[in-house]
C-alpha cells in the first residue's frame, strides 16, 4: 500500500463518489478519475504481469504510452474488452475491471518461474528454440506459450454493440487538445473555414491538466473555442492513422465512459476526415530511465506522478524518490511537494544541475544527490527502497521509499507525422527525433514539434552502475520484457540495423508500439555498436497509434452488409423449394435440393441420375455474360481467344479458351455469334469482371483501332439450363419461332425465338454430356419462364438440380472448371485442350508464351482421371499424389487431386487430377497418402461417361 488520495486538489469531483471493482475487489473513486488514478489512490501498486517473465508490474505512465497496466473491462456478457490501458479508462459507477496475464492470481503467478529462470529466455529464444519438430509445436510449445504468455482474452460471444462510421471535411484539422493544439485551432478558426479539433482524452488540456497554474488560461481558451462558430471539438477521439492526402482515421468513443445502463446508441464512431491542412499537436511522451530494477511496481514516469497528484489529487507514495536525467524531473518533484506529496530525494545522474532547481529543491526540504544513479530497487510487488551510488560505482547508499519517479527526458510524439511519411530530424538537445519536412500539407506544433520548453537533460543509454549490464534487470520495453542486455546480445549476435534488433529482441513490437522503449532501445544499440544514433535508423511507426476495436473499423459492414449477396432471378424459387445454398464469388447459388431427410450425397446422386435418365433444370444465371458488338467483333475475339472465331457462322456457338499473356488458362466459356457484328459471350461465374476488364484493357490500350463495344450483360439475362434426354420434349410446347429438330438445331447452335411468350436466345449447349439447352431470357422474366418450364416438365419427371450435381455431371465428362482443375499455372496442352488452340492463327493473347522452352519441358502436370482401387473410396480434393508411397521423406509429390465425386452413372467414385506427365501414366497405379492409409488409384483419361458423345448430339 503506497498511494493515497490527497486531502485536496485535482480536477476530480469529490462530491460524486463512484464504486468500482478490480479483480473482484470493491474500491471507490470519484467522478473525473481514471481507473488508474482511482486504483493508485486506493493503494494498489500491482496492475499486471509482464508478457514473458510474468514479473509483477505497476503503472508506468498516465497516457497512451502505458505499457504495463493493461486491463480487461467487463461490461456484461459479450461486452468484454481486453488490453485497455488503465489510465485511459474513464471511471464510472459500477466499472468492473480485471488484471491480465496472470494465473491463478495477480499476486501469485505460476509462470513467474519464467523470471526465476530468466537466463533461459534471452532475446531470440523463441526463434531459436521452438523450431523442430513440428509435432512439438502443435502439441507442446504453442499451447504452453499461449497459456502462459499472452494479453487479455478475446470475448467469445458475439459483440452486441453497433458502431457508426461517418465522414468529415474541413480546412484545418488539429490533432491534440493541449495548449498548443487549442492555440493552433483558434488561429486557424480566425481565417474562417471549418476547423476540427480532436483529442483522445475526456477533456481538453493535455499536459496543462497536470498544471493548475494554467487552468484559468485553459478555461479562457475553451470559452473561445465554444464561441467560435466554425470549430468542432471532439474529445475521446483518437486519431489512429494519418493517410495520404491529409486523410485521417479517428475513432470517437461514445459510450465506454458511461455505466452500461446509461449507454445508448453506437459504442464508437469511426471518422474519416479529409483536411486541407493538418496540424499535429500530439505533445511528447516522457522517457523512462533504464536501470536495475526499473520495473518494480511503484517505479513510474515523473510525468505520471505529476498527473496523478495535480489532475487527480493522488499521491503515488508516502516517500517518493525522483531519478532524473532531465530538469523536468525536478519541476515535477517540486510540483508534487507543493501538492503535499513527500518527496524524499532527487537523484540526478548529471554532475551539474541548474542552481535554481537545486536551490528550490533544498528549500522544499528535498534531499538532492547530484551525479548519482540508482543501482538497485528493493521490493518485489512494491517498491520498498532504492540503492544508489555516485556515478553508479561509488559507495552504496540505501534509501527507503515507496515510489520512484523516472525523468529520462522527452520524446516528441511523431507517430502520425511518420504515418504521413514526413521526414524526421535527429535533435541532440532532445535526444530524440523531431518532425522535419512534411510531404502532406501538415505542420507540427508544441512539444510534439520540439517547440516547447521542457528544460534540459542528458540522454543516457543505461544508467551507470557497478553491475554488468548482463546481470541487471534493467528493462527497456516493459510490455515485451526486453532488457538492456537483450539489445546487447542482439548486437553481439550480429544485428546492426535497428529493424533487425527490433525483430530479434521484439523491442517496440508490443501493443504500445514502443512509445516508451524505442528511443532507449536506440540509445543502447548505439552505445553497443559504437555508432551515432542517427546512423542506426529508426523503426517505422504505423497505424494504429493506439489499439483500435475491430468493431469501429468494420462499422456497419457486418452481417448482411458485410458483402453484397448477389441473387439470381430464380433465387426465391429455389428458397421456396428447399435449396441448400453455397456462395460462389459473390453469388448465392443453389447447391442441391434435398428431399425428405436427404443429405447432400443422397440428394446429388438422385439429381444426377434424374438428369441422365430424363431431365433436370438448373439455374445458370450467374454465368458471366458480355455482349460484344461492332464491325471488328470477330477480329477482336480472334485475337483474345485461343481458337478461331472469324469463320464462326451466325447461329453457331463455340467453346472459347482464354489465356493470359503468359500462356496460362484464365477463363473459358461457350459463346455464340448472334449476327456478323454481334456475339453473346459467356464467362465463368467468378471470372466475369476479370474477363471484361482484361478485354477492355486490350481494346482500349493495345487495339484501339478496332471498332468493338463490350457490355456486361450478366445481370440482364436469366439462364435456365435444361439438361437430359427429355429436354427437347419439355420445351417443345413452349417454344415458338424455332425448329427444335436435331438437324435444324444441332448441338452448339443458337436460335432466337420465344419461349412461354418471352423473347429468348436459346442455346443448344451442354455442360452435362446430355442433350441440353440453355434458355436465355430477360432477367425480369426469368422466374416466370422457369416456372413454365418446371410445370411443363412435370410430365417428364423434371428434377431441379444445383451446383453440386452440375459439378459431378461435368466431371463425368471431363469438362474442366477453370480455377478448380486449373490453378493459374496450366496451359491448354497441360489440360488436354490442344484442340481448342488455333494452330494457324498468327497471334492470340498468350500464344507466344506457349512457345517458350519451359512450356514444353517434360514433367509438366497434365490433366487426367483417377479411379480408386476401392470404388467407394472418395479422394479428397487437394490431396497430394505420389508415385511411390514408400519413398523416404520428404516424399516427392507428382501432383494433386482437383475434383472428386461420387458418380451415380458409374456407381462408384471418380476423380480428376493434374499429375506430372499424366497422360503417359494412363493405366498406371498412383498413390494418395492420407492419414491412416494410402489410397491406390489408376490413372485414366479424363472421360468417364459416353466418350463418343452420342447422348450430347441426340
Amino acid at each position: 500500500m503506497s498511494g493515497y488520495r490527497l486531502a485536496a486538489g485535482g480536477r476530480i469531483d469529490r462530491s460524486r463518489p463512484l464504486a468500482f471493482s478490480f479483480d473482484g475487489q470493491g474500491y471507490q473513486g470519484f467522478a473525473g478519475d481514471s481507473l488508474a488514478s482511482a486504483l493508485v489512490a486506493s493503494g494498489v501498486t500491482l496492475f499486471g504481469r509482464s508478457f514473458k517473465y510474468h514479473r509483477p508490474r505497476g503503472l508506468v505512465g498516465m497516457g497512451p504510452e502505458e505499457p504495463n497496466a493493461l486491463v480487461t473491462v467487463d461490461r456484461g456478457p459479450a461486452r468484454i474488452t481486453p488490453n485497455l490501458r488503465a489510465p485511459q479508462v474513464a471511471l464510472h459507477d459500477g466499472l468492473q475491471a480485471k488484471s491480465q496475464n496472470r494465473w491463478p492470481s495477480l499476486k501469485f503467478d505460476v509462470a513467474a518461474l519464467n523470471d526465476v529462470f530468466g537466463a533461459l529466455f534471452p532475446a531470440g529464444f523463441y526463434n531459436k528454440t521452438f523450431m523442430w519438430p513440428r509435432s512439438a509445436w502443435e502439441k507442446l510449445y504453442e499451447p504452453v506459450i499461449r497459456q502462459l504468455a499472452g494479453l487479455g482474452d478475446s470475448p467469445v460471444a458475439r459483440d452486441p454493440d453497433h458502431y457508426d462510421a461517418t465522414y468529415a471535411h474541413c480546412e484545418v484539422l488539429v490533432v491534440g487538445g493541449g495548449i498548443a493544439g487549442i492555440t493552433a485551432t483558434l488561429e486557424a478558426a480566425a481565417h474562417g473555414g471549418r476547423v476540427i479539433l480532436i483529442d483522445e482524452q475526456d477533456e481538453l488540456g493535455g499536459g496543462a491538466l497536470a498544471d493548475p497554474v494554467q487552468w484559468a488560461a485553459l478555461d479562457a481558451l475553451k470559452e473561445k473555442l465554444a464561441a467560435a462558430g466554425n470549430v468542432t471539438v471532439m474529445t475521446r477521439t483518437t486519431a489512429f492513422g494519418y493517410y495520404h492526402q491529409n486523410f485521417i482515421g479517428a475513432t470517437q468513443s461514445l459510450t465506454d465512459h458511461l455505466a452500461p445502463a446509461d449507454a445508448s446508441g453506437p459504442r464508437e464512431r469511426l471518422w474519416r476526415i479529409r483536411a486541407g491542412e493538418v496540424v499535429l499537436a500530439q505533445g511528447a511522451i516522457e522517457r523512462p530511465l533504464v536501470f536495475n530494477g526499473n520495473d518494480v511496481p511503484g517505479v513510474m514516469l515523473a510525468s505520471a506522478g505529476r498527473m496523478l497528484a495535480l489532475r487527480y489529487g493522488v499521491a503515488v507514495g508516502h516517500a517518493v524518490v525522483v531519478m532524473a536525467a532531465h530538469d523536468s524531473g525536478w519541476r515535477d518533484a517540486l510540483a508534487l511537494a507543493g501538492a503535499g506529496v513527500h518527496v524524499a530525494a532527487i537523484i540526478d545522474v548529471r554532475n551539474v544541475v541548474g542552481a535554481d532547481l537545486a536551490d528550490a529543491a533544498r528549500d522544499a526540504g528535498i534531499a538532492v544527490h547530484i551525479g548519482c544513479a540508482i543501482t538497485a530497487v528493493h521490493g518485489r510487488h512494491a517498491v520498498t527502497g532504492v540503492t544508489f551510488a555516485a556515478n553508479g560505482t561509488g559507495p552504496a547508499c540505501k534509501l527507503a521509499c515507496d515510489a520512484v519517479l523516472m525523468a529520462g527526458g522527452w520524446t516528441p510524439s511523431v507517430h502520425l507525422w511518420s504515418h504521413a511519411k514526413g521526414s524526421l530530424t535527429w535533435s541532440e538537445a532532445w535526444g530524440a527525433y523531431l518532425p522535419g519536412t512534411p510531404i502532406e500539407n501538415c505542420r507540427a506544433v508544441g512539444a510534439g514539434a520540439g517547440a516547447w520548453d521542457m528544460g534540459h537533460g542528458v540522454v543516457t543509454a543505461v544508467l551507470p552502475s557497478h553491475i554488468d549490464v548482463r546481470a541487471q534487470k534493467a528493462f527497456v520495453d516493459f510490455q515485451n520484457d526486453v532488457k538492456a542486455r537483450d539489445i546487447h546480445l542482439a548486437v553481439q549476435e550480429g544485428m546492426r540495423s535497428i529493424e533487425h534488433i527490433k525483430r530479434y529482441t521484439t523491442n517496440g513490437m508490443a501493443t504500445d508500439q514502443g512509445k516508451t522503449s524505442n528511443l532507449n532501445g536506440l540509445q543502447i544499440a548505439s552505445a553497443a555498436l559504437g555508432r551515432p544514433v542517427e546512423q542506426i535508423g529508426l523503426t517505422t511507426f504505423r497505424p494504429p497509434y493506439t489499439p483500435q476495436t475491430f468493431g469501429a473499423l468494420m462499422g456497419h459492414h457486418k452481417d448482411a452488409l458485410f458483402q453484397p449477396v448477389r441473387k439470381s432471378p430464380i433465387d426465391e424459387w429455389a428458397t421456396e423449394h428447399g435449396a441448400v445454398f453455397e456462395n460462389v464469388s459473390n453469388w448465392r447459388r443453389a447447391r442441391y435440393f434435398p428431399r425428405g431427410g436427404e443429405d447432400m450425397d443422397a440428394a446429388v446422386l438422385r439429381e444426377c441420375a434424374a438428369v441422365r435418365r430424363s431431365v433436370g433444370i438448373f439455374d445458370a444465371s450467374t454465368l458471366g455474360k458480355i455482349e460484344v458488338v461492332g464491325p471488328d467483333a470477330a477480329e477482336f475475339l480472334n485475337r483474345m481467344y485461343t481458337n478461331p472465331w472469324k469463320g464462326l457462322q451466325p447461329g453457331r456457338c463455340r467453346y472459347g479458351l482464354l489465356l493470359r499473356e503468359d500462356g496460362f488458362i484464365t477463363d473459358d466459356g461457350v459463346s455464340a455469334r448472334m449476327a456478323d457484328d454481334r456475339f453473346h459471350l459467356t464467362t465463368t461465374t467468378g471470372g466475369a469482371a476479370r474477363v471484361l476488364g482484361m478485354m477492355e484493357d486490350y481494346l482500349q490500350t493495345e487495339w484501339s483501332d478496332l471498332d468493338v463495344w463490350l457490355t456486361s450483360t450478366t445481370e440482364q439475362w436469366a439462364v435456365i439450363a435444361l439438361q437430359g434426354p427429355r429436354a427437347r420434349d419439355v420445351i417443345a410446347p413452349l417454344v415458338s419461332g424455332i425448329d427444335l429438330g436435331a438437324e435444324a438445331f444441332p448441338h452448339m447452335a443458337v436460335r432466337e425465338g420465344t419461349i412461354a411468350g418471352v423473347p429468348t436466345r436459346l442455346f443448344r449447349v451442354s455442360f452435362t454430356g446430355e442433350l441440353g439447352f440453355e434458355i436465355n431470357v430477360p432477367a425480369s422474366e426469368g422466374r416466370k419462364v422457369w416456372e413454365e418450364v418446371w410445370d411443363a416438365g412435370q410430365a417428364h419427371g423434371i428434377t431441379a438440380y444445383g451446383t453440386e450435381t452440375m459439378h459431378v455431371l461435368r466431371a463425368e465428362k471431363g469438362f474442366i472448371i477453370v480455377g478448380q482443375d486449373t490453378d493459374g499455372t496450366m496451359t491448354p496442352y497441360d489440360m488436354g485442350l490442344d484442340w481448342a488452340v488455333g494452330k494457324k492463327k498468327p497471334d492470340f493473347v498468350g500464344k507466344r508464351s506457349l512457345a517458350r522452352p519451359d512450356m514444353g519441358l517434360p514433367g509438366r502436370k497434365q490433366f487426367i482421371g483417377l479411379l480408386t482401387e476401392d470404388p467407394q473410396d472418395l479422394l479428397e480434393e487437394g490431396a497430394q499424389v505420389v508415385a511411390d508411397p514408400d519413398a523416404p521423406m520428404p516424399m516427392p509429390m507428382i501432383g494433386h487431386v482437383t475434383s472428386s465425386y461420387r458418380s451415380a452413372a458409374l456407381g462408384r467414385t471418380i476423380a480428376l487430377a493434374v499429375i506430372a506427365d499424366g497422360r503417359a501414366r494412363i493405366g498406371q497405379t498412383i498413390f494418395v497418402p492420407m492419414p491412416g492409409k494410402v489410397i491406390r488409384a489408376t490413372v485414366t483419361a479424363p472421360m468417364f461417361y459416353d466418350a463418343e458423345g452420342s447422348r450430347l448430339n441426340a
Partner: protein
Amino acid sequence: MILIHCPYCEEDRPEVEFTYGGEAHIARPLDPGALDDRQWETYLYIRRNPRGAHAERWRHAHGCARFFNAVRDTVTDRFEVTYKTGEPRPAGDTK
C-alpha cells in the same frame, strides 16, 4: 484513401473506384512471333520498379471504365500527373 484525378472524367475520385494496371508505356509487340525468347521475356516480365517517379496504368473501373496513365512517386504515393492513354509521358513530373 488517395484521391486520383481521372483525366477522362476530369474529377478527383477516391482510390476505391480505381484499379491498378502495372507499368505504363509497355506496348504489346505487334508481331510477338517475331520476338526471340529473351525479348518476349523482357516484354512479359521485366519491369523498372523504380524508387521515385513511376509511369503506370490505372483504370477508373467503377467510373468511366477508361484506362489512363499516371506518374506516381513510389516513395510518397503522390500522384504527380495523370494523362490519357496514348499520350506521351509528360516532360517533368509536376502538375
